[in-house]
């Protein structure tokens, strides 16, 4: 700063002064640079996925890729049955003309002027460029619905998510009720047991759970995906912590009125625990919709595939049809985006307060 003239210094001060009165610190520059690249890196890939999902197969294999989904304009020319692709051609006399291509032979392209269909013109292929317009290949989205089991996958995923979440909410809230409202011998032992099961992820017991599921005859049925993860220690934990805050007087009063224990649970405690139940419901929906390894193991027939397993199967095929995969990926993503947009606060406070996901 010592060498700068008073004029430039005042200019520098003017630019870097903030409303608060203090100067722009180097860390502020860092902050906004970081945020800029952060947005680019976190959002960019998803934007690219969505844009690409609207491209035709021809548009997808183009290198370098175009940013927007573009389709080549095709024109109907008299004397030809099919519409012909339109090109912009640098003519020998220095002008450019829009011509339609009849066929291509080696490095020479046979073209025709749409306004003058009788005359054929031969053009070297490096002198023509495609004429394109913004066009979205919606067939990427509609075709998989008809041609593959995609609707079946979608349906399976919805069934698994809904049924599993309902079962999870019911049995975990019952357990949490039992562990929070009553004082009984063995309560601490049960809590310790719950904490211990918290420590055993499915990755450690893949083979024996597979055996259990096979014994119960559930292989290749959606129950094999729904049931093993239905009792979640995290769920019991979350709900119990919340139910402990419910005043005991309320329950005593209900007992005085001869309400059965089940009625107290269903009509008093459950409605009061709604905020915690909502958090668990959102978590459960996310877990089930995104679950991959376990369904991959127990679902071996394509009729019972969930979306995640189905997508993985498609992308692993020898002849990968990326235009369909990208569109199906976008569809898989939509419920998550919807849930996130509307319930962001629920999710973030839920994670921050429980430390789980």
């Amino acid at each position: 700063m010592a060498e700068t003239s008073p004029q430039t210094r005042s200019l520098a001060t003017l630019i870097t002064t903030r409303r608060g009165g203090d100067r722009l610190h180097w860390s502020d520059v860092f902050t906004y640079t970081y945020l800029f690249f952060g947005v680019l890196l976190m959002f960019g890939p998803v934007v690219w996925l969505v844009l690409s999902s609207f491209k035709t197969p021809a548009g997808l294999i183009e290198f370098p890729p175009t940013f927007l989904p573009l389709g080549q304009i095709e024109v109907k020319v008299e004397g030809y049955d099919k519409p012909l692709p339109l090109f912009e051609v640098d003519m020998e006399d220095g002008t450019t003309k829009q011509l339609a291509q009849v066929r291509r032979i080696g490095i020479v392209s046979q073209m025709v002027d749409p306004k003058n269909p009788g005359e054929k013109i031969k053009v070297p292929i490096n002198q023509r460029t495609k004429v394109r317009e913004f066009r979205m290949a919606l067939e990427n989205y509609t075709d998989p619905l008809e041609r593959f089991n995609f609707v079946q996958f979608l349906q399976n995923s919805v069934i698994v998510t809904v049924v599993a979440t309902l079962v999870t909410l019911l049995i975990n809230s019952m357990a949490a009720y039992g562990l929070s409202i009553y004082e009984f011998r063995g309560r601490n032992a049960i809590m310790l047991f719950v904490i211990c099961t918290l420590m055993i992820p499915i990755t450690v017991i893949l083979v024996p759970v597979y055996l259990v599921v096979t014994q119960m005859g559930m292989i290749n049925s959606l129950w094999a995906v729904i049931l093993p993860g239905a009792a979640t220690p995290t769920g019991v934990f979350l709900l119990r912590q919340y139910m402990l805050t419910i005043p005991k007087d309320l329950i005593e009063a209900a007992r005085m009125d001869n309400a059965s224990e089940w009625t107290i649970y269903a009509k008093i405690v459950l409605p009061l625990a709604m905020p915690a139940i909502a958090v668990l419901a959102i978590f459960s929906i996310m877990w089930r919709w995104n679950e991959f390894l376990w369904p991959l193991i127990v679902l071996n027939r394509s009729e019972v595939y969930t979306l995640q397993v189905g997508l993985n199967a498609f992308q692993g095929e020898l002849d990968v049809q990326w235009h369909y995969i990208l569109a199906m990926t976008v569809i898989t993503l939509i419920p998550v985006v919807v849930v996130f947009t509307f319930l962001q606060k629920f999710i973030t406070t839920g994670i921050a307060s429980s430390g789980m996901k």
Partner: protein
Amino acid sequence: MSDSSTNGDGFGDRAKAAAGWPVMVSFQALNYPLSAIQRIVGIQGMPWIFLLPNLAFFGIFVVIPLFINFAFSLTGGTELFLGNRVYTGTEQYGFLLECETFGDPITCREDRFWKGLYNTAIFIIFQVTFLVLFSLITALILNQKIRARGFFRAVFFFPVLLSPVVVALIWKWILLRDGILNAFLVSVGMDKILFFVSPEWSMFWAVFVSIWAHMGFYTLILLAGLQAIQPDLYEAAEMDGTSKERVFWRITMPLLWPNLLVVLVLALIKGVQIFDEVFVLTGGGPGTATQFIVQYIYNTGFTEQVQNFGLASAASVVLGVVLFVLTITQLAVTRARDNG
């Protein structure tokens, strides 16, 4: 929670209106059998009735399998049902752990297992380090008074909700031979790189993509930790004219440290179990360059021609021991944070 309850009521009301009556009817119907049970067992017996379904699920799908796992690891053959399996003692463990020189996977009898362990170790060293580092930087930045903070927080958080398959496909599409990243490289005058043919690049992207997907979760925990720091401390420091750097090292870091430890251990526990996104992204390849321990268990038990359940179980037990140690550490660290 107080923050969300205003939102929550509106959502709850609408949900109740839509799903209310079938739920009400089924709860009402369940009241008759459960009142009858209550007359038999009495109020003091009811907690066990409420606990029963959950405990049954835990028992069938967690506790019993845990014991069967040990039994499996002590038997051989290809039969799934325990009764048909041959007792082999600790043979599976011997096979799994036998090496001429430890630390060199090629000299081990089951080199794929050791390669998996070795890959997992490399993976978590890089992944956990950079995951925690970037989560910390992001949390610090999001904790400042910046414009559109909610937007930026959402941007860093949303990949957490994406499924691993979706995450892997998004990145695979970018990294393909004719993908947009190679287009960028060509446009700045470099050659195309076949990322999934090179073991080093595959490992790099496995680490990168898993950080991309999970960073938001850890950022959120650290952000909550930062917001729990008393603002008075910062005000006092500002009045004393303390420099930003000094405030960071003397106030922020010491008070955030317990949270940072929790995040570190959580990231380790998740990192050891890495499978989903890398499996879809690289398939474990090229060769076995990105094959991790969970994929070894999956391949050995479920995809090989001869399903070797015994060996897969033995490997699971080894993984379980590692996770057990890490989880004990986590519990200790979390307790220290919450009490201190």
